[in-house]
């Protein structure tokens, strides 16, 4: 599921903000972030570096959990799970905190209230518009990958919490299915 999140996040943002009628667009996610200003698409190198780092970590975590899920009772499985289950959770928490902080900073510095979800009309401060009143409709919302990340994080935490039980069940079933060697009757 983590790998699915990474794949979808390359095409669909976790959070999107649109100003005007598609005049300004911000596609934000820990995997891929880009901006579109009146048809001029651009990325910020620092964000791109962070995105690539997050993507590598998420893929590594996803592969670790995938291998763990195949053999949860193996000796190395606990380490794989410990490494893998945190990745989507950390991405989710850091992304949410970062987004929340960004909207607060923009609100504090520029005096513009940006919604995390929903639409509103923002009047730009007149200091930036030379006395002209500029009112911009803004719509923002979380996308499907964000919800998928919440789901995958929940599943990863569940896997961590029930790891011992799962490993025990698998070990028991493996023991049961093990061939019983019977000795031939003595004549």
């Amino acid at each position: 599921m983590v790998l699915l999140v990474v794949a979808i996040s390359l095409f669909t943002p976790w959070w999107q903000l649109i100003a005007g009628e598609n005049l300004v667009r911000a596609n934000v996610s820990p995997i891929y972030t880009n901006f579109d200003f009146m048809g001029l698409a651009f990325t910020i190198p620092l964000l791109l570096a962070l995105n690539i780092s997050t993507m590598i970590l998420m893929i590594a975590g996803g592969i670790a959990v995938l291998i763990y899920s195949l053999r949860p009772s193996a000796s190395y499985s606990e380490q794989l799970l410990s490494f893998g289950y945190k990745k989507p959770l950390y991405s989710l928490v850091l992304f949410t905190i970062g987004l929340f902080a960004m909207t607060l900073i923009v609100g504090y510095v520029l005096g513009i209230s940006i919604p995390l979800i929903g639409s509103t009309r923002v009047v730009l401060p007149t200091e930036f518009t030379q006395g002209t009143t500029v009112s911009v409709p803004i719509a923002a919302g979380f996308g499907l990958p964000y919800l998928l990340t919440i789901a995958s994080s929940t599943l990863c935490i569940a896997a961590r919490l029930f790891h011992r039980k799962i490993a025990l069940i698998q070990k028991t079933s493996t023991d049961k299915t093990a061939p019983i060697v019977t000795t031939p009757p003595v004549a």
Partner: protein
Amino acid sequence: MIIPPDLEEIATVGTDAKAIELPKYVGSTYDAASRTVTAEFSFTNPFDSDLVLNSVSADVECSAHVIPLGHAELTNPLEVRAGTTATIVIVFTWTQTAENHFLTAHQNADSIDIVLVNLGLDVSGIDIETPENINLTVPLAQ
């Protein structure tokens, strides 16, 4: 401070006066029966995205006597494709007061100086209301 070249380009587009040119007056026709002047302006969209001009409106005053002459507005919403030039059609409807004013104060004038006040625009959903007035000289038909 290090500014990425992409951001620099955006800042240039946002601040460079050459990037956005004001609409150019092309010509006008008038209809005395309906008391309207239809003025045409050409506007070039310098951006890489389409712009939709949803509304343009302004009150028109006589510049010399500060008398309200009427109201001007965009006839129909207009989509200006990226990098193309489109013709903006603005219809000014003058009032009976304006007509009387033309006959008394500008009887033999070839043109009249007007000022556009309370100028409002809706461009791709962004509402712009400017406190600045725009002065124009409009030829008068005798």
